[in-house]
């Protein structure tokens, strides 16, 4: 069985836990419960190469007193950068986190999600800013943990990217062994 560690990172209150909850348990709660430390969930996906287990590390959101520990990001096969569309500041936090995540986890695939698409009318993050992220070659997906919009797509895109990286690594390992 293939197992992949995926970290959810972003500012506090952007909806990381809600996205995992929607994806793993298909539920959403309106009430905000801040995450302390780490919550780990698993999701098993079937593929033609066998089952893939995603181990989802939902890391406490960054705030003035909480910084993501690089140790949590090490060993990740990919990560999801979560932005709250209604809070412009969460985009800045995400950009900063991307640099640190790349340092800690290396050049692994990641997906940027702009969450709270159900509140799109009140977004502070402008379309031009989202477009700018896409021009960097990043995968940018709008999601709503509340409605479920974009959630499967988000994990699906990351899983496909991680599996592509997995096969490339396998090939390299095979070439070395051969």
């Amino acid at each position, binding site marked *: 069985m293939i197992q992949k560690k995926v970290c959810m990172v972003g500012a506090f209150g952007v909806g990381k836990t809600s996205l995992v909850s929607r994806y793993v348990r298909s539920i959403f709660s309106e009430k*905000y419960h801040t995450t*302390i*430390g*780490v*919550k*780990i969930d698993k999701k098993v996906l079937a593929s033609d190469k066998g089952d893939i287990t995603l181990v989802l590390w939902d890391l406490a959101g960054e705030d003035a007193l909480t910084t993501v520990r690089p*140790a*949590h990001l090490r060993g990740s096969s990919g990560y999801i950068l979560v932005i709250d569309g209604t809070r412009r500041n969460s985009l800045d936090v995400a950009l900063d986190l991307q640099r640190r995540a790349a340092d800690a986890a290396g050049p692994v695939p990641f997906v940027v999600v702009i969450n709270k698409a159900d509140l799109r009318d009140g977004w502070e993050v402008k379309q031009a800013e989202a477009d700018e992220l896409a021009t960097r070659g990043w995968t940018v997906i709008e999601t709503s943990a509340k409605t479920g919009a974009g959630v499967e797509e988000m994990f699906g895109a990351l899983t496909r990217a991680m599996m592509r990286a997995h096969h490339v690594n396998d090939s390299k390992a095979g070439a070395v062994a051969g």
Partner: protein
Amino acid sequence: MSTTPKPVQSQDSREVALHLFAALRMAAFVPLPDGHFRLLGVVPDWLRNFLPEAAAAPDLDLIERFPLIQSFLSEADEVWRGTADARLCSDMWAETLPGGGETHLQAWAVLVANSPYLVIEAADALHRERQLVVQYAHDTALLYDTIVRLNREVQLAAQAKSDFLAMMSHEIRTPMNAILGMADVLAESSLTPEQRRYVDIFQRSAGSLLDLLNDILDMSKIEAGQLKLEHVRFELRDVVSRAVELIGIRAAAKGLKIEADIAPDVPAWLMGDPVRVRQVLINLLGNSTKFTEQGRLQVRVERNPQGNGPASLLFGVSDTGIGIAAEQLPKIFESFEQADASTTRKYGGTGLGLAICKKLVEAMSGRIWVESTVGTGSTFYFSCEFGVAVAPAPEKQGQTQTKLPALHADTPVRILVADDSEDNRAVVRAYLKGTSCVLDFAADGLEALEKLKSSHYDLALVDVHMPGMDGHAVVRAFREHERAHDHAALPVLALTADAFKESVERSLASGFTMHLAKPIRKATLIEAIARHAQAGTQVATGPAPSVMIDEDLSAILPRYLSNIRRNPAAAAAALARGDFDTIRSLGHNMKGTGTSFGLPQITQLGGELELAAKNQDSDAIRHAVDELAHFLESLAVQYK
């Protein structure tokens, strides 16, 4: 009998420690070389949920069961190697219980007597406590973000409202200029009595509309917190007389007399905002005139018995009018309130006047109230706090302002009128008909600039808002041209429908000599032209000053004068941004250099400017800048 506790034996100590661990909901492990961890003592109940195999096989694969331990181990190794603190805790993490729900765990790396230990603690209580604190912090941070966002939105809305009002003010004033102007011109023509009555109504209605516009602008500025009070020296008697004179014309038409009385112990000269004091007096006297059919009006000023110091004053405006019913008194100073609806029908007005008075008086650290008896009359009182000012020195011989000349001299005054509105060009043409002014016209900024550069004028009237190149751009480009060619500065008067103080300051900063707000009355325009027209046309005020300068200075004087000619605009720009240091420095420089170049007038004006800047006296600065601009405009140098 001794009460000292009996020391436990070593075997007992280990058991006690393990029981203590269990009671604290902790499980202690020893790391093994193969990556497993050996549990010390019995399996705690809470751990059995996650590691049911622990009782049978104490060497456990904690990393497989608790993935977070993996990321903690690199830091834990530091502790166990004895190179870091002897105690380190991991982040908390959540584990799902088999029957649902979660438990929150936390790991500790401990080094005891050079032996490494890993302790896992079931930390639900600590988690709950920490979550409450962090959640409160997050809720507060989100609330703060919301407040900041809403505040930004409110500021943007206020700005939008302010911009809208400025635009509306401009849009209304532009046609009002034509209406009032043409009404004035019409009133001066030969009319039948019936036609004269129509024109009179025409003028009065347009005047009322303008008053209303000013009231609305005032109120919006006050509500937006943009009301800025002046702090300048003024003579109280002058302020009171002007208000009485203005309303006196209207009162006299109704057969009413206005008396003014200032108590002898009231200081003659004060520091404050004379324009706003006059505005309150005019408003109250205007109301009194409106609601009084016979009798008299009275203004009284005395020291406020409840005030602080000699410049704390109490004003009273009394009338013998219809009076106000007691139940209507409490709301009379609220916006859009009048005594009753029938008042509006009979006497007109918006109900903004007294609300504006209240705001203005409060801004001057005072209060306003009214005492009234129906059928007998009313007395409006207001208090204000001022500073006491020293009376200015008497003006020197020859500096007394002479009455401004009428524009009937034989010498023609060549004027360029640049305005994109054909109606407004027609108003100026009508106003100046029969004077010695010779007019040339430009319909846009580019044409105006070309004409200013290529033709000779004595004065220019330039509309600020023109399509393409606006008045600011025209005057800036023209001033550059003058400097480059070492020409004397032409008086360029701004014509604009913008009545805000900021607009006036912006005009002066751009290089305009003066700012005339539309609608411009005929007398105002003629007075401004007579005051600023070039030397050649000011025959009535005497010849231009011709200064004899030593020939030795001829090589350097033009550059010096070119520099000095920048000072009026530089000082006006500095005043607009409240930069008194720059003005003081400009004045100081002029004071120190003028006489050396044979121009003691520049030294004198520099001294005045420096002193005014030191006192932060905006009016005195404007006066000195005007004098300097006027001197430089009319300066004719001859070398001996």
